[in-house]
């Protein structure tokens, strides 16, 4: 074998490894879900009086399993999760958004959580039903989602008061250039209507591990995924009562200027 052949084979091995590990990880989503979690979801559906709570805990456990697998299979990626996140309770959590991994990372960190999901996902058979049973909110109240939105918003003060966290990506979509985009007002309005604290998180490098528009995980490049608490704005903080645009700008500025200690 010539040096050129060896070099070509070596350069092929990396992408093949990416695809192989990606297939393993995604098979957890299908076969793993059916074999390990579906029976518990069915039991929760039949037996649990508080299905929303049970489904949220199961979702959390399922994604903890997912990230356990990711950590084991991709040792080049290190994880730095701010320990303060484990203590966040009863808060509206806002975070920047760079990868599909971000929402499931947050689900894996909060046993009691709600989040906002695109309306079209609620229309997917079984999966959409699971989202609804998990207490998640539709992104808009158009058409048949009006009733669901009304019910979710009405029950939100109690959910937050009992220690649940509502996490929202106020940019609405993933940033493709790592810049923090324009914020939607929803998260901030809900927080103020419920008089709940706002916890601001900053996620970094999930997009290097799983880039938008790519099929495979990047399993070879050394990387450190970080998730930090940037700020917490309690209802008695003077900023909490700023005009909504000013409050959002304050949060956005803190995210833009955040430097990891």
């Amino acid at each position, binding site marked *: 074998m010539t040096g050129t052949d060896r070099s070509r084979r070596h350069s092929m091995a990396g992408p093949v490894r990416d695809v192989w590990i990606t297939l393993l990880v995604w098979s957890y989503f299908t076969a793993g879900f059916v074999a390990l979690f579906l029976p518990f979801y069915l039991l929760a559906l039949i037996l649990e009086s508080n299905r929303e709570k049970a489904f949220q805990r199961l979702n959390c456990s399922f994604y903890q399993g997912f990230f356990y697998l990711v950590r084991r299979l991709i040792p080049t990626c290190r994880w730095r999760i701010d320990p303060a996140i484990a203590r966040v309770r009863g808060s509206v959590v806002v975070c920047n958004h760079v990868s599909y991994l971000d929402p499931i990372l947050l689900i894996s960190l909060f046993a009691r959580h709600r989040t906002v999901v695109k309306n079209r996902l609620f229309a997917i058979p079984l999966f959409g039903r699971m989202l609804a049973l998990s207490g998640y909110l539709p992104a*808009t*109240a*158009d058409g048949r989602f*009006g*009733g669901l*939105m*009304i019910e979710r*918003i*009405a029950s939100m003060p109690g959910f937050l008061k009992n220690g649940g966290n509502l996490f929202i990506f106020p940019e609405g979509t993933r940033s493709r250039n790592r810049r923090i985009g324009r914020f*939607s*007002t*929803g998260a901030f*309005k*809900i927080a103020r*209507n419920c008089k709940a604290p706002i916890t601001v998180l900053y996620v970094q490098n999930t997009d290097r591990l799983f880039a938008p528009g790519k099929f495979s995980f990047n399993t070879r490049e050394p990387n450190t995924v970080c998730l930090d608490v940037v700020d917490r704005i309690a209802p008695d903080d003077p900023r909490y009562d700023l*005009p*909504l645009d000013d409050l959002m700008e304050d949060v956005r500025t803190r995210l833009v200027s955040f430097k990891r200690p």
Partner: protein
Amino acid sequence: MTREELEKAILAVFRERFEIENPGLDENLREEHEFDSIDAIELLREIELLLGSELSRDEKKKAMEIRTINQILDYVMALEKGTVR
């Protein structure tokens, strides 16, 4: 409550609760003032206070399609007459 009195009350709610000053009566609130479904639900609470009665789920769902102040006024007037379907 007359339509004029109601208009005053609704505009006061928009000013105090939603930080929206003097919206045009036929302006699309969603497009012009980012008045979204969360605001709409909050507005329904204020309407319940104004009317002194709770709205039914169907009455609330009907309100999700409202886009202008005039439509809000029509909606509340219809509620008072008991003709919201």
